[in-house]
């Protein structure tokens, strides 16, 4: 067994909260630059230029690129030969998040009960931590601050086999069209197909953080659907911030999983152009 201190995880989490909110991934920046060069709408082009200027300010001045510094979501691959010492696993994520959001001047956007009192927890906790146990003696952590505006435009639909791939395409296009300018386009569209009700939502979420942005599903059949959907979504004309243009989405990522003979669930999770995520291996 390899011993890893909970304090070390906490420190990594703290740093990742700031890093993810200040520094947008180079793959995403490149993708936005290409979109700006292609954009026909003068308003759309001006918006994409402002987005790129803002990314520079965030990087140079260590400022959050968006005031919505999100729900702190972690995807963890925990090696089965790792033993956590000097503290507890979940506490490391909670404390790391609390300290990262305080020290990084990041917004605290979480309310305690979701309906009745809605009182802000004032430290952006609790985080959401998804852990997969994998072979090995390392911990791989991906931190993603997930903004609320784009999350609100997401949906799970219990389609059936009769809907087929055309039904999935129709669902994705309809979801993006209905979202309009609300999720801060150009968006990243995460699509999950298969599994169960909750599993396909997880697939859609994970699809958002595929690296690099715009890379394809390993199965050629789905890679082709990704390309087709990106073109169709961009033909909707929604454009940057919904004010009209060619760039509605930067990428469409599909993740799939086997499913039950009676079902074909599908989920669409949308991310704004600030497609923030950072990964570290301990």
């Amino acid at each position: 067994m390899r011993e890893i201190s909970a304090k070390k995880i906490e420190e990594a989490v703290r740093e990742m909260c700031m890093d993810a909110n200040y520094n947008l991934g180079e793959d995403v920046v490149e993708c936005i630059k290409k979109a700006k060069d292609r954009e026909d709408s003068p308003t759309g082009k001006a918006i994409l230029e402002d987005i790129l200027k803002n990314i520079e300010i965030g990087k140079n001045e260590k400022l959050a690129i968006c005031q919505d510094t999100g729900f702190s979501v972690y995807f963890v691959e925990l090696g089965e030969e790792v033993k956590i010492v000097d503290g507890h696993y979940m506490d490391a994520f909670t404390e790391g998040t609390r300290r990262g959001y305080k020290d990084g001047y990041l917004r605290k956007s979480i309310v305690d009960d979701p309906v009745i009192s809605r009182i802000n927890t004032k430290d952006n906790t609790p985080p959401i931590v998804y852990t997969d146990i994998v072979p090995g003696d390392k911990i791989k952590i991906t931190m993603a601050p997930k903004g609320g505006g784009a999350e609100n435009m997401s949906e799970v639909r219990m389609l059936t086999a009769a809907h087929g791939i055309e039904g999935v395409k129709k669902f994705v296009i309809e979801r993006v069209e209905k979202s309009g300018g609300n999720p801060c386009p150009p968006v990243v569209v995460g699509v999950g197909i298969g599994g169960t009700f909750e599993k396909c939502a997880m697939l859609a979420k994970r699809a958002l953080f595929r690296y690099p942005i715009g890379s394809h599903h390993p199965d050629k059949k789905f890679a082709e659907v990704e390309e087709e959907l990106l073109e169709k979504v961009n033909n909707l004309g929604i454009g940057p911030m919904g004010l009209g243009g060619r760039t509605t989405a930067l990428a469409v990522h599909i993740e799939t999983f086997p499913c039950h003979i009676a079902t074909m669930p599908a989920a669409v999770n949308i991310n704004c152009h600030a497609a923030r995520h950072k990964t570290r291996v301990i």
Partner: protein
Amino acid sequence: MAEIRLQTPLSDESIEKLHIGDKVLLSGVIYTARDAAHKRLVELIKDNKPLPIDIKGQVIYYVGPAPAKPGYAIGPAGPTTSYRMDPYATILHEHGLKASIGKGNRGQEVIEALKKYKGVYLAATGGVAALIAKTIKKAEIVAYEDLGAEAIRRLEVSDFPCIVANDCYGGDLFQEGVKKYKID
């Protein structure tokens, strides 16, 4: 597409000059409010109680800024999605509000209210929060401090960039813009 410099507070005459697609550089005092603050403001109006801010001729910016780093007037402060404030917008315009700033399109009820009470909806670019914050010169909490990021702040802005998305003539830039670039 005209570029117009506007000074707050806004009059009916200044609103009438604005058309969808106009680029506006806004200067003067504006107020922040989002979900929780709107709920409280509208409850006060319904109970016939005074509001903590005078909204006549005023502009409300839908934003919950991040905390300010030392040396900064305000933290990153980009617009939040406006449709969540749609249920509160009509009554605020009825009581004298002239403009709101946010992102995303508005419902038909708000478009009608802008016509009836002479108002505009201004779209700012979402997710360029650090850039927008540079146009905010001063910020102070004036009500509902307990709401944290959602408290009402009085902002002094200089050349705050936005676009007229809905004017007082029923125009809707979201519909027009998309129509222009849609490929069937």
